[in-house]
């Protein structure tokens, strides 16, 4: 502990040894800023006596969640099921397409325009058509989540797969490695960090996709709940749904990040936070 720089010691005089643990310090900072945000929001609501249907205070929002817990649980499960399923489809499809693009470069020129179009078309505009095709069940929502989420996975994974250093490829070729060996032993491990950054973007997009689907035509889910709440001017209900949506999104993002740390502990961007956790 004595090796800690003096500045750190002065900045956290009371938190002590535990507060200097890097992972904990990060968690403290993050929850600190969130807490400050909520406190400020609460103060504004009370000081300016803002009516509930304009801006409910954090306490009102949280109380709404607790009061109507059954309702929220039911709708949250739907939304995060759609998100998760769409995301997993996006990962499977995205990684597959990226692999094809890199292994058979000729196909890249054929596939890329289609991918770009699929990404450029506004999903809100496509959603009603998907409802006509697939009905009002869960599938169109999953499909929109998938549609919006796969692109960053394709682009990042393909870039990662192609980023093997020249000497590495020379080494592989001089050893007469097969295409398959080069792919598995060289390309895939090199691509993992970028694949995970693509997945982190994708998981946040998948949440948006699911909500778009529910907005356009749903009978359940947090997006549907927000729509209903708005039409009834039940702003606390809408805010409560938004709060749960944010919390769920953060949990999903954290899950992907955790997976990243487990799969690629050697990665530089995760190392600094990860090593102290395992090393104690």
């Amino acid at each position, binding site marked *: 502990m004595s090796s800690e720089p003096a500045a750190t010691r002065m900045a956290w005089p009371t938190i002590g040894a535990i507060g200097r643990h890097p992972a904990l310090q990060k968690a403290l900072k993050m929850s600190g800023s969130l807490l400050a945000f909520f406190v400020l929001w609460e103060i504004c609501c009370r000081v300016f006596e803002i009516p509930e249907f304009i801006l409910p205070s954090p306490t009102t929002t949280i109380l709404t969640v607790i009061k109507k817990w059954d309702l929220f649980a039911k709708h949250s499960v739907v939304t995060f099921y759609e998100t998760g399923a769409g995301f997993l489809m996006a990962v499977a499809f995205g990684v597959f397409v990226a692999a094809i693009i890199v292994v058979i470069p000729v196909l890249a020129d054929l596939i890329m325009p289609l991918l770009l179009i699929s990404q450029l078309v506004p999903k809100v505009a496509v959603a009603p058509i998907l409802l006509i095709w697939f009905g009002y069940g869960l599938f169109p929502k999953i499909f929109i989540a998938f549609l919006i989420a796969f692109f960053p996975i394709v682009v990042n994974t393909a870039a990662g797969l192609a980023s093997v250093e020249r000497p590495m490829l020379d080494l592989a070729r001089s050893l*007469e490695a097969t295409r398959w060996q080069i792919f598995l032993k060289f390309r895939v491990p090199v691509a993992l960090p970028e694949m995970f950054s693509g997945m982190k973007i994708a998981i946040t997009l998948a949440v948006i996709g699911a909500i778009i689907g529910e907005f356009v035509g749903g009978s359940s889910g947090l997006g549907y709940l927000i729509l209903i709440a708005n039409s009834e001017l039940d702003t606390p209900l809408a805010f409560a749904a938004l709060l749960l949506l944010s919390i769920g999104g953060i949990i999903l993002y954290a899950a992907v990040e955790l997976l990243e740390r487990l799969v690629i502990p050697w990665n530089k961007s995760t190392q600094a936070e990860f090593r102290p956790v395992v090393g104690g």
Partner: protein
Amino acid sequence: MTEVGFTTPTAIEIDRLSKRYETKDGPVLALDNVSFAIRKSEFIAVLGPSGCGKTTLLKVLAGLEIASKGDVRMGGKSVRGPNRRTGIVFQSPALMQWRSALKNVLLPTEILGLPAERSKQDALQLLELVGLADFANKLPDELSGGMQQRVAIARALVHKPDILLLDEPFSALDTMTRSQLNVELLRIWSDSKTTSMLITHSIPEAVFLADRVVVMTPRPARVAEIVAIDLPRPRTPEMRVSPEFVRLTDRIGRMIGLEYV
């Protein structure tokens, strides 16, 4: 060229080798009619200015580039494509960040499908030879630049290649590490008795390490002269200041200087 002796068998024969690249500005001749032979267990240094085509020569030997004209024969057979009988050390260590030192050394044996248990013993032995016995389970990130390059040398030797090809392996290291690794490399070479070809642009490095120095001209690379280094072995760092050493480096320096005019 006869100083080393007639009795040592030839390991590699480079025969009137030329390499032409097609570029947007027309063809570029990287190698022009290069011929020399490397004897078994010999240490050859190929010396020339940066960008003169030395690396092209190494790539042709490894089968990574196909010669435009001429031939490379290894053990009597022409090199016609990727050639697993070579072990390469690059300018950068080119280690896999996700593999330990030991696993990095084992990589060629995995690709070639060599028996795992034997290979592991070989790899551990090589790590000991390069002085990294205690670092077998460390990730490259946890090793210094010089240590990483030693792992790369062990990796190049693990499948018992006919020739060790070194492509300016120490040029990215600081001077102190570099001279230390020069001494290490000599020890590794004399222990493993692997025929070696070092590409370098450092005259003292070439003279200190090699049995013979092949001096190349700037682009297109031709063989200017092959200088036999008659310094006794084993070579010690003190030899770097001996009159013979200075005489040799001076002579080669003048040779390259003349070629620049």
